[in-house]
């Protein structure tokens, strides 16, 4: 998933990185194919190279020392709102067929379970040029319709974002622990683009709570290259995120 995240970052792009896997994906992308990518963190940090040590949060001192720009949250969100951030990573507890994410409430055996909330994810989902969703793939997380939209995807399908005046482009891909998914341009519905090595389309469908369709030319996700694996090891030497 880290390597798949890295592959989503194009050279020279400004990316709202967030935490955990995307943080590492940013480091790997900078190391390999996107040396001029800029990482933006909602706490008010803009970096042109990865954090100086492994970190748990975007506010940790190694992500601040050697930054390009430290400012307020308003300033980085203003860059986002004014259309100068090409991409952002987001996640959630639930995702649905139109890429809407929920991090507020989920049901658990008939009981409601309170989750942490949006953080900056709703802002990124609304405003970034495009979003990449990162999720663990489980049937209870891939649902036909989220109970609550924290971070909007394509709502109930094509035209929904435009109608509500959302400035950003919406999710371009979902990267899960089983595969990579795109959104059908006509219906804005999630579809299998590739399955990770060792995973089958059937397994993915089993872990998804709606009938997932296939993108044209569905294929296997390219296996990590030697360079990619080396870059991951360099930035996660203890395997905290990738073990």
């Amino acid at each position: 998933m880290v390597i798949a995240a890295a592959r989503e970052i194009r050279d020279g792009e400004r990316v709202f990185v967030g935490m955990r896997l995307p943080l590492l994906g940013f480091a790997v992308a900078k190391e390999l194919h996107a040396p001029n990518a800029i990482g933006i963190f909602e706490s008010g940090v803009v970096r042109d190279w990865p954090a100086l040590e492994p970190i748990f949060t975007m506010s940790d001192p190694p992500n601040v020392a050697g930054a390009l720009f430290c400012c307020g949250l308003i300033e980085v969100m203003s860059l986002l709102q004014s259309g100068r951030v090409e991409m952002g990573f987001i996640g959630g507890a639930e995702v649905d067929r139109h890429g809407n994410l929920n991090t507020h409430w989920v049901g658990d055996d008939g009981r409601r379970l309170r989750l942490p909330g949006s953080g900056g994810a709703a802002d990124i989902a609304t405003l970034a040029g495009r979003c990449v969703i990162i999720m663990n793939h489980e049937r209870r997380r891939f649902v036909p319709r989220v109970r609550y939209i924290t971070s909007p995807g394509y709502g109930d399908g094509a035209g929904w974002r435009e109608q509500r005046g959302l400035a950003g482009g919406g999710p371009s891909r979902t990267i899960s622990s089983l595969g990579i998914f795109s959104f059908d341009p006509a219906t804005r519905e999630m579809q299998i683009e590739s399955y990770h090595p060792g995973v089958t389309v059937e397994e993915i469908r089993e872990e998804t709570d709606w009938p997932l369709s296939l993108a044209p030319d569905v294929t296997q996700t390219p296996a990590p290259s030697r360079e990619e694996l080396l870059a991951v090891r360099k930035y996660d030497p203890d395997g905290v995120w990738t073990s």
Partner: protein
Amino acid sequence: MPKLRSLRDAVAEEVEDGMSVFMGAALESLIPFAAGYEIIRQRKRGLTLMTTISDMQFDQLIGAGCAAKVCGAWVGNVAAGLGHNYRRAVERQEPGPLAVENHSNFSMALGLKAAAMGVPYLPTRTLMGSDFREEDAFAGVVCPFTGESLLAVRAVQPDVAILHVQRADAEGNAHVWGNLGVTQDAAMAAQKVVLTCEEIVPHEVILSDPNRTLVPGFLVAAVCCVPLGSHPSPTQGYSRRDDRFYFDYHAQSRERAGFDEWLDQWVLGVDGPDGYLERLGSERVADLEPDGNHMAAPVSYGM
């Protein structure tokens, strides 16, 4: 009343039951944990806790029964996962009921900015498709120039903002650097500011670099010298993040009984900030020491 006070006096005199209190302005750094512990020790009640991302501080205050309401974008434990006390309060009203007003990071920042600027709202393009745009803090507006539909975010004016900073003088003029989040907006939005700081410095140190000043001291009600007052969160140049403390808390607070033990061990059974550092132990404190080879390039204000 002098501004420079002990943390105990400052919390006793500036934080009242039922107040709205903004903390965690720099997201996961500079969290005024020591001030939160003092609020718990003094058994403040009925607080509205305001934040962007609180990390685990709010979970502690909620579990200790200090909060009636949370207004913010994220409550949990950033490195370790969900906030168990937050869940118990919202799902089972334990130890008491907890109201929640949902924001995103940006909408909370805009609410503070509106209050800081002295206007009742600010317009934004965010949250146009989120379900929580239906909350009372938001309303639709139309741009009088372009006709676009926008979202208005209502001003958020906390009764008090508690902020941890690197250094301040006795009048509350402070220097803060590194990761800032909404620190300056919170300081300008609040009715009053309480600062905890790593060190008290002469007035001249502040005047030597006015671009580094957080806000002028006339907005600050109290300043308290509390070294490592952000522990376990980091303070750039003064303290690393104590990651283990977050994981330990997460494991211990999974059940209510474990949280009570944690509370006795780290808050109620501790004699203020000094006692807390003693309990941490000199070895752990030494481990938090940052590496010092990251000095800012010199700057002259020569005239």
